[in-house]
Every structure is written in C-alpha cells, then in structure tokens.
C-alpha cells in the first residue's frame, strides 16, 4: 500500500460513514463502530501516532511537508504550552504556519531559534530537513530508543503518558513564559468525575487533575464541553470517535479510543472490537 492510499482510504471511509450517519436519528451498531476503529489511524505503528504532516504551506513553497511528532515535544512541554501560549490550533491546518512567522519568532520559532532548539537561522541547509523530512526512517529509529524507558500502553504511541507524568519519568514545562504562573487547581475538581453510560459496567471515571496537568481550563471549556451537564443526546460514542468531545484529542494525539478500558475501566475484555 502506498503512503497516499493509506491516508485516503481511512478518510474516504470516514466521509462515507459521516455521510450515512449524520442527520438521521439512528445510531450505528457496534459492528459499524468496530469498522470505524479499524480504518482509523491509531492502529498504525507506535512511532507514527500523533505525527502531524503539515502539507499546505510547504507544498506552496515547493518544500517537502513538515512531519511534526507530538511524542518528542510532549516530553518537554505540556499541551497547554503550545496550544495555549504559542497559539497552535487544535485542528491540523488551522494555524497555517509560514516561514516568515517562524523566522519572526512565532509558533515553532519560539523555541526553534538556535538557542533553545535547533534552527535554520544559522544557515545550515541540512537543518531544513530536520522538519521538512524526506525520509522518516531516522525518526522511526529515534522512537525505538525513546520509548524504551517509558511505561507501556497498548495503543497510540504504546506509551502511558499520564503514568510517565505522574511518576515523574517525564517533567515537561507547563509554561514558556516565566512571568505567567499557571492557575491554581481547585480542590473541588480533584474528585474524579463520574460520567454515566447506558450500563453501570461501562461508566467512565474522568480525572480533571490528570487533564489539568497538561491543559488549561479554556482548552476544553466552553468550546468542547459546555460546563452544563446536558445529558448524552450528542455526547455519544459515535460523536466522540468522529473527533468531537474527547475525540478532539483522544483519537489522534492523546491515547486513542480503541484503548477502551483506559476510560471504561470496568468493561469486560471481549468488547467485540
């Protein structure tokens, strides 16, 4: 399978399913959901999970697309540093980073300035290829070594990031600007939140604390989750899988949703997919 078709197939599958599913009231049956999960990227190799390929601006400039691995960056910085402080969008293509912006010290240029991290500013053309990757083999090899020391998980990067953070195996910065302190985490939210499902066996325990360790309140509220509890008319597994709600992160960067029991802790082993 060529690279291109491996990208297009899941997209077509998703488009078809989205088409057939939305607008009508009917819910997808489990079998169909299973199919979605199989065509979605998380089942790919560990090193590829969370890699964002930035094509649009690169293509215009005649450059090889940028391959951005989330996994390298998230050991050093929490999500909120880039997605809040550096203003990277949460959807690929939303930010539209240009070379001019980069050189002006915006976006990637905040760190990749030759001081904190490598830069093209020192005039070495081979540095371009560090992001505009022609060959990703080096990245793959780097991942092998990288993942060795970190706690294992079954999907996504094959790394249990939350555990690594809790146990102090990684200690990412939570802010890039020293003058801004991160808001204190309210005590009340330390109590895990119970999210009911159709069966008590599959109830979800949501930890605000684990999420706040990486994110800011405004990363999720109110765009993704209005604080108001409104029932589950829209907060369905299907909508989550299509990249809404939890799926905004837990499908492409944070651990994917085929890792059922990470959220539905008491679910039995044979879930059907």
């Amino acid at each position, binding site marked *: 399978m060529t690279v291109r078709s491996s990208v297009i197939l899941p997209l077509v599958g998703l*488009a078809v399913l*989205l*088409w057939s599913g*939305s*607008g009508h009231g009917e819910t997808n049956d489990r079998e169909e959901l299973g199919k979605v999960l199989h065509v979605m990227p998380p089942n790919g190799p560990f090193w590829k999970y969370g890699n964002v390929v930035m094509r649009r601006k690169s293509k215009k400039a005649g450059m090889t697309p940028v391959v951005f691995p989330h996994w390298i960056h998230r050991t050093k910085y929490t999500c909120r540093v880039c997605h*809040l*402080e550096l*203003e990277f*969008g*949460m*959807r690929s293509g*939303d930010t539209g980073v240009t070379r001019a912006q980069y050189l002006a010290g915006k976006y990637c240029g905040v760190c990749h300035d030759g001081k904190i991290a490598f830069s093209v500013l020192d005039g070495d053309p081979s540095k371009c290829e560090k992001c505009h990757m022609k060959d990703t083999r080096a990245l793959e090899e780097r991942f092998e070594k990288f993942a060795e020391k970190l706690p294992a998980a079954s999907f996504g990067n094959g790394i249990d990031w939350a555990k690594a953070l809790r146990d102090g195996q990684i200690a990412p910065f939570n802010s890039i600007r020293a003058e*801004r302190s991160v*808001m*204190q*985490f*309210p*005590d*009340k*939210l330390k109590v895990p939140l119970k999210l009911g499902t159709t069966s008590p066996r599959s109830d979800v325990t949501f930890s605000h604390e684990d999420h706040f360790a990486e994110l*800011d*309140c*405004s990363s999720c*509220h*109110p*765009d*993704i*989750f*209005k*604080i*108001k509890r409104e029932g589950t008319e*829209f*907060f369905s597994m299907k*909508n*989550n899988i*299509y*990249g*809404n*709600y939890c*799926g*905004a992160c837990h499908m492409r960067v944070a651990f994917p949703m085929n890792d059922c029991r990470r959220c539905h802790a008491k679910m039995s082993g044979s879930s059907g997919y």
Partner: protein
Amino acid sequence: MRKIFFVVPILLVVAGIAWAQGGMKKHKPLPYEFGTVTINNYSQQAGMPPVVFDHWVHRQYYTCRLCHVDVGFGMIAGSTKIRSADNMKGYYCGTCHNGEMVHNKKRIFESCAKEYSREEFKRCVKCHTFEKRAAKEDEFYRFSEKMPSERFGNRINWEAAEEKGLIKPVDYLEGVSSKKSHLKVNPDFAIKTKVEGMPDIIFSHKKHTIWNGCELCHPDIFIGVKKGTSKYSMVDIFDGRYCGVCHEKVAFPQTDCQRCHTKPPQG
C-alpha cells in the same frame, strides 16, 4: 465537473450538521477579526453589502460609554437598527462621520449618501464591505505592534495601553454628551467563586467605570441591586450573559481565565 457544484454544498451541509452539535473546537477569530460586528439590517435591501464594523479601530480613540451611552448604540449586534437617514441627520455613525469632525488632524469621512455616484461609491465601501480586507489587516498589525501585548482577543492589552498613555480614549463629545461631574468610583470587590479552591474574582469598578460609566451595565446587564443578588455562573457567562455580554466578543475573551480569577483562595 458540474457534479462538484452539487457535491460540495452537500458536504458542507453535512459538515455543518456535525459542527452544530458542538463538542468541537471553534474557529478562533484572528487578532484583527476580534470584535468585528457585521451589521445587516437594511444594507442588503438597499443593494449594499453589510457594514463590517471594527471595534479595534474605534476603541483606541473613544471610550465604550461614548458610543454605547451618549451616541445610543445598543449592546447587541443589529439591535440599534441604524438607517442611512439617521446617519445623514448626524446621529449614530453620523455623529462623528459627518465629513466635518476632525480627529488627529484628519477629517472623519462622511457616512452614507442618498444615492451613489462613482465618486461616492468609494466612500460607501469604506464600511459596506464584504471582501477580505488586506489593507485593514496590515493597518491592524502596524497598530498592534506598538501596543502592549495580551494573549487573547485582539492580542492587545487595552487597559495597559491606556495606562501607558499609548491610547487616550475620548469620553466627551460637544453637543452630544451631557456634562458630567467626575465619577466617584466604588471600591473593588471580590466575587466568591462557587467552585471550592478556584481563585476568587477581583472585580474592579474602577477599570470598568472609566470606560463604561454606570448605566451601561446597571440595571440592563447586572440586574441585582444588592451585591450578590445577581446569581450567575460560568454557564451563563459562556452563553453571553452578564460579563459575557462584553467579554468574549469585544473585551478580552473568557479563555483568559486568570485575567479575572486572580485572588488566591484564603485558608
């Protein structure tokens, strides 16, 4: 080929349905788009594109109060129902945009016309505009470079800009504003949060009254007379009520949690 014209709108509608359900990150307005209001009560009937009003252009020169109290503009987009006749009589936009008033040694262009000639059309499209405005965008970035920066909204800290004397918003217009005595400002107070352990909000009357006066917020936006009688939560504010009337669309948005939740909880 023609099929594309068919398929694309359908796809957009499908995407729209998925979008409307929520649970997704919204598109954040770019710094120069933040605070833009599109006014289209009568424009299209008159064969004109809607008016695109930029708050950032105006708020560097005038206080909120001047337009929203003295000139009489409403706080909800489209609620004022401005007609070109009103402007030409010297009200609403026409209060300043009358071709006579001078600001910063520049004559402020006249608003609206009975009929438009080629010459006048150039003036019309200054406000009635639909296209992406590259010149406006450049102008914004040139302006914002000089201003103290902020993380959200226009990425301009307007409050600090005034403190540093970089902007001097005018609060009085001869013939329009009533002569008022100097405002005695009520002290700042803390608003207790409902969530235990969440930093309390320090509400500064001073910061708000300098730009807004009293009657802009009381009693229309904050009804309660006694402190604490207006019961509202973040849900209401997210829905654009109370603080959310200004803070999201024009004043700094609610994503800037720490701009309000500043007081460390006691005990």
